[in-house]
């Protein structure tokens, strides 16, 4: 069953086409990632799916409801976590959730049952009566995740859920996101420009300049690059090379006094290599292609990780000082 169906979606800002004819589907229970550099169209896409922006053309269904015609039904189907905190920092954690439950028409009985459940999930149950202003960035993000769950959404939307957090906290947030999938069987639709985080997704759509350039599982996407890279060091390089070429029928290169082999499936190839060879090997290194290699391969450029705009940094700075 598809939770999200997007067909030929287009959004323009004047001359700029922010989202240019994209189509994809998200299946129930999967973590689906939209990966791309800043300005690629990720936030525009998520805003259209969340009914915050009207598409110029195309169609999108969330939980079977049309984002243009059935906005309130779409909204009730979504749990949203934004890039910037959207908590009321003068209210307590529990009050923020209570407020949310009221706006999403959750009845009192369900709310009382649900409150400990979601707060315990993100380890904030003990802090439920604390004012949100006293929370750290990571705690706020966790509280937002809990808030998004209060009204039993069909899908969670996470727009750059770890942006602006330190690596330890980012890792921590991911533990909670994975817990959501495992314990609640929650469908998660997220955007990110952190390559290592995209690895957690079941499927990734790589987006660049408003277009989806590839869509597959992280493992399959990496296969697009070619293969794994194996680097060997040996006492006698030339002899080893001859032996590999003779016994395994492979082309081998020598670079920087090391032997380099490119193979499709490095994990399975290594045992075979050791089994066949008699020449002594001093060291071996197996490198998997990264998503950055994939992105480079598809678009001819790298995703820069730390390219937050000046405005964004300023905002974070202000948000922290408040």
């Amino acid at each position, binding site marked *: 069953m598809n939770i999200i169906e997007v067909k030929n979606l287009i959004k323009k800002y004047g001359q700029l086409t922010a989202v240019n004819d994209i189509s994809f589907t998200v299946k129930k229970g999967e973590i689906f990632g939209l990966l791309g550099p800043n300005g690629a169209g990720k936030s525009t896409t998520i805003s259209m799916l969340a009914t915050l922006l009207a598409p110029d053309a195309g169609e999108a269904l969330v939980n079977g409801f049309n984002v243009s015609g059935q*906005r309130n039904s779409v909204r*009730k189907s979504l749990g949203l976590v934004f890039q910037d905190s959207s908590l*009321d920092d003068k*209210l307590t954690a529990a009050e923020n959730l209570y407020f949310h439950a009221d*706006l999403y028409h959750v009845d009192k009985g369900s709310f009382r049952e649900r409150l400990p459940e979601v707060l315990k999930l993100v380890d904030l149950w003990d802090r439920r009566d604390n004012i949100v202003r006293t929370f750290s960035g990571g705690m706020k993000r966790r509280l937002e995740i809990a808030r998004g769950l209060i009204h039993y959404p069909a899908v969670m939307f996470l727009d750059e859920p770890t942006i602006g957090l330190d690596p330890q906290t980012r890792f921590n947030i991911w533990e909670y996101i994975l817990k959501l999938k495992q314990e609640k069987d929650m469908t998660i639709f997220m955007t990110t420009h952190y390559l290592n985080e995209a690895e957690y997704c079941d499927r990734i759509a790589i987006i660049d300049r408003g277009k989806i350039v590839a869509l597959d599982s992280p493992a399959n996407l990496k296969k697009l690059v070619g293969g794994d890279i194996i680097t060997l060091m040996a006492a006698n390089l030339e002899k080893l090379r001859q032996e590999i070429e003779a016994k395994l029928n492979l082309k081998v290169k020598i670079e920087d006094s090391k032997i380099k082999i490119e193979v499709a499936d490095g994990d399975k190839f290594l045992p075979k290599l050791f089994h066949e060879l008699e020449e002594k090997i001093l060291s071996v290194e197996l490198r998997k292609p990264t998503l950055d290699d994939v992105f480079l391969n598809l678009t001819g450029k790298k995703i820069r990780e730390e390219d937050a705009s000046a405005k964004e940094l300023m905002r974070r700075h202000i948000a922290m000082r*408040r």
Partner: protein
Amino acid sequence: MNELRAIYTIWKRENIRYVRDKARIFSTLLQPLMFLVIFGAGLGGTLTQSNFGIDFMKFMYPGIIAMNVMGIAFFSTVSTVWDREFGFLKEILVAPIARTSIVIGKILGAITVASTQALLLLVLAPFMGIQLHIIIIVKLFLFMMLLAFAISGMGLLIASLMKTTESFGIIMQVLIFPMFFLSGAFFPLTSVPLWMTILSRVNPLTYGVDAMRQIILNGLPAELAHKLFLFPIQINVIALLIFSVAMVSVATLAFNRRS
């Protein structure tokens, strides 16, 4: 039913936030006191000599209450800009509720907070030799709510037009202070130049000040009343209602623009 619940929720949030913000409560009580004491002491003496006809503090007191209502109602609604800047508005805007409910909830919140706090200022009345009884207090409370209604509509409209919090200072300088000074709170508007008469007539605060002054200073001799009061109370009610409806309608439209 769902929309009523949403309105109630947004109204409640305004109240909780207000009660928690002790510094704001304190400063909004301090400001009117400051005006009364400084202007009252500074100008009172001079005006007694020039046959003003009434104790200046007594004259100013209703105006100060009206200014207080306006300040709180305006700040409560214009604070929506902060909500936008720091993301909380998004939480409300993506909720499955009508934009109109958001507007109504905000305005009801502002009315509650502004008129309740202005009511606190009435404890000063006996110190100025002003007799209050229940009818006067009820009448005043109705006008406090009406004025808060008009001003919160204006605040919300400005908030939906303002893009960032930086423009807030400019709004205060070019709009709020002139509205204070041209409202008749500090001097009677019965013998001022034509330009000032015109400006004061488009200022909703003028009608609030005038009505509250007539309610508090009832029973003045006709000659003095003629010198200090502008319109019959009914005209003040109508003017405030027209201003309120116009502002709230335009604010709702501006707020409903999907962006």
